[in-house]
C-alpha cells in the first residue's frame, strides 16, 4: 500500500484539530456577533444580511486566494511566515465559516418569540439576563449553526490546499490527501480516505447532539 497508516493518522489528526479549532474560534466570535446582529436594528441591516447570505456560498478557493494574498512573502503580513502552516489554514477556515456562524445564530435568535424577552423582563431579568434568555431559548438553532460550521470546514479543500500547501506530515489534511491520491490515480486509497472522513464527521456530530441532551440534563440536576 502506497499510503502508510501513520500518514493517514497525521492527516486525520490535522483535519480534526484544524476543524475543531476553527469552529471554536468561529463560535467565539460568531455567536456574540450573531446575537448582536439579531438584537440591533440599523439602516442597511438588510444589506448586511444579504452580503452574509452571499458569503455562505463563497467558493473556498476564493477565500484561500484572499488569505494567500494577505500572508504571502511580499504581502504586509508576510513577515509572520504563516504561509503553508496549519495556522494559515485556521485563518482561512475562520474567514470562510464566520458568515455561516453569524447568520445562522442571528436567524436562530431572531426566531425566538419576542414574548420571551418580555416575559424575562417582567419577571425581573436585567439586560444581560434577558440577552442570555434569548440565547438559551435559541440554543437548538445555535448548536445547528456550530454543526453547519464544522460540516463546512471538515470537508473544504480550497483553503487547505492553497494556504496549507499540502505538505506531507505537516499541512496535509484528509481532503487534500484525497485530492492528491485521486490525482495520482490511487483511486482505492482516495475512497478509503473519504470513508474515514465521513465517519469522523459523524462522530463529531454525535458529540454535538449529545451536548444538546446534556444541556437539558444539567438543568434537571441543578433543580434538585
Amino acid at each position, binding site marked *: 500500500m502506497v499510503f502508510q497508516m501513520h500518514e493517514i493518522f497525521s492527516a486525520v489528526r490535522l483535519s480534526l484539530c484544524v476543524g475543531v479549532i476553527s469552529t471554536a474560534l468561529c463560535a467565539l466570535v460568531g455567536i456574540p456577533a450573531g446575537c448582536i446582529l439579531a438584537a440591533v436594528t440599523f439602516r442597511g441591516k438588510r444589506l448586511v444580511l444579504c452580503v452574509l447570505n452571499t458569503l455562505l456560498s463563497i467558493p473556498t478557493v476564493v477565500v484561500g486566494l484572499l488569505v494567500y494574498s494577505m500572508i504571502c512573502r511580499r504581502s504586509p503580513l508576510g513577515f509572520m511566515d504563516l504561509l503553508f502552516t496549519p495556522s494559515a489554514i485556521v485563518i482561512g477556515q475562520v474567514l470562510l465559516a464566520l458568515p455561516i456562524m453569524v447568520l445562522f445564530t442571528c436567524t436562530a435568535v431572531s426566531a425566538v*418569540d419576542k*414574548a*420571551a424577552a*418580555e*416575559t*424575562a*423582563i*417582567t*419577571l*425581573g*431579568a*436585567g439586560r444581560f*439576563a434577558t440577552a442570555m*434568555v434569548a440565547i*438559551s*431559548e435559541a*440554543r437548538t438553532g445555535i448548536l445547528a449553526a456550530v454543526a453547519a460550521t464544522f460540516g463546512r470546514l471538515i470537508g473544504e479543500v480550497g483553503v487547505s490546499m492553497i494556504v496549507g500547501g499540502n505538505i506531507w506530515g505537516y499541512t496535509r489534511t484528509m481532503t487534500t490527501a484525497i485530492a492528491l491520491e485521486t490525482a495520482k490515480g490511487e483511486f482505492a486509497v482516495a475512497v478509503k480516505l473519504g470513508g474515514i472522513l465521513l465517519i469522523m464527521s459523524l462522530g463529531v456530530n454525535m458529540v454535538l447532539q449529545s451536548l444538546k441532551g446534556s444541556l*437539558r440534563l444539567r*438543568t*434537571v440536576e441543578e*433543580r434538585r
Partner: protein
Amino acid sequence: MIEILGLKRFYGDRCVLDIERLRMEEDCLHVVVGHNGAGKSTLLRIIAGLDAHYEGTVQSTAPQNDRVFCAQRPYMFNGTVRDNVVKGLKFRRQLRDEKSVRELTARLGLAGMLSRKAKNLSAGEMQRVALGRALIVRPRLLLLDEPAANLDPHGVDAIQNEIRRQVSDGVMVVMATHFGEVAQRSGGCIHRLEEGRLTAPEIHNVFEADLLKVEQHTWARLREGLQIRCISDRAGRRRIAIPACDIVISRQRLDSSMANVIQGVICGVRRMGNQLELEIDAGILLRAVITPDSFDKLQINVGKEVFASFKASSVRVL
C-alpha cells in the same frame, strides 16, 4: 396606586388608547373590561412597563421590578414547568424556598406536572404556570391579561380564588377580561374600555350607604329605615351597586332565598333593546330589567305596586 394622565398610544396613526385620567387605588382588585381590541392589553402592557411608546404619564407606586405582567398567551421558556415557575427567582437572584414553591404550585393545580416540558402544556395549563411564575416573586402589582381565557370552570375557580387571596394579602391586582360577567363576579372595581376610551361602567343602582355589621350579617343602610343585606368585609360609608338584571320583580312578596325584598311603585318604563327597564320608586329609585313577556304576564304598569327582590350576593360594594 396607579395614576394615569393624558395617556395616548398610537399604532401607526390609529389611536388605540386614549385615557384622559384614571386612578387605581391600592387595596382592591381592578378589572378592565372591554371587547377584543378595546385596548385592554395595551393598557396593561404600558402599566407593566413593557411598552414605552406612549404619550402622557403613567405613574405607579410599585417600582418597575415589582410589577409582573401575565400575558394572555404566556410564553413558556425551554425546560420543565418547575424551571418556568422558579425562573423569576433566578432572575432576581433570590433563593427559592422549596416549601412555598410546592404550596403555590399545589394551589394552582400544578403539583402533578412539575417535571413536564412546559412547551407541551395546554393553553390553560400554561396560564396557570404563568400565574405561578408571577406569584413566586411576590410582586406588589400583578397585571393579568385574560387570566381565565382558556380555563375550564374548575381552573377558573382556582385562579379566582388565588386572585382573591393575593388581593387580601395586599397585592394590587389589575385584570383585563372581555367577559362582563367575570368582571361583575370578581367584586372588583370595574373600568370599561371601548375603542381605547374609558366609558361609564354598565352598572345601575349606585347608592351611598353605611355598611354595618350586625352579628354575622352585613347591612347597607341606604337611608333611614331602608337597609339591605350584602356580603362584604368592609365597614363605613361606601358606594354600593345592585345590577339591574339581578333584580326580580313580582306582584306579591316572594318567599325565597333572596335576602332583600323592597316594596315600591313603578314610576317609569323604558324600552332598552329587546328588554324593558323599569324604574321603581321605593324611597330610592331602583332600576330593574325584565323581558316584555314577563311585563305582560305580571300585568304591571306605571303606578302599580311591586316587590323588587335580590340576593345579598348581588349587591356589589364598590
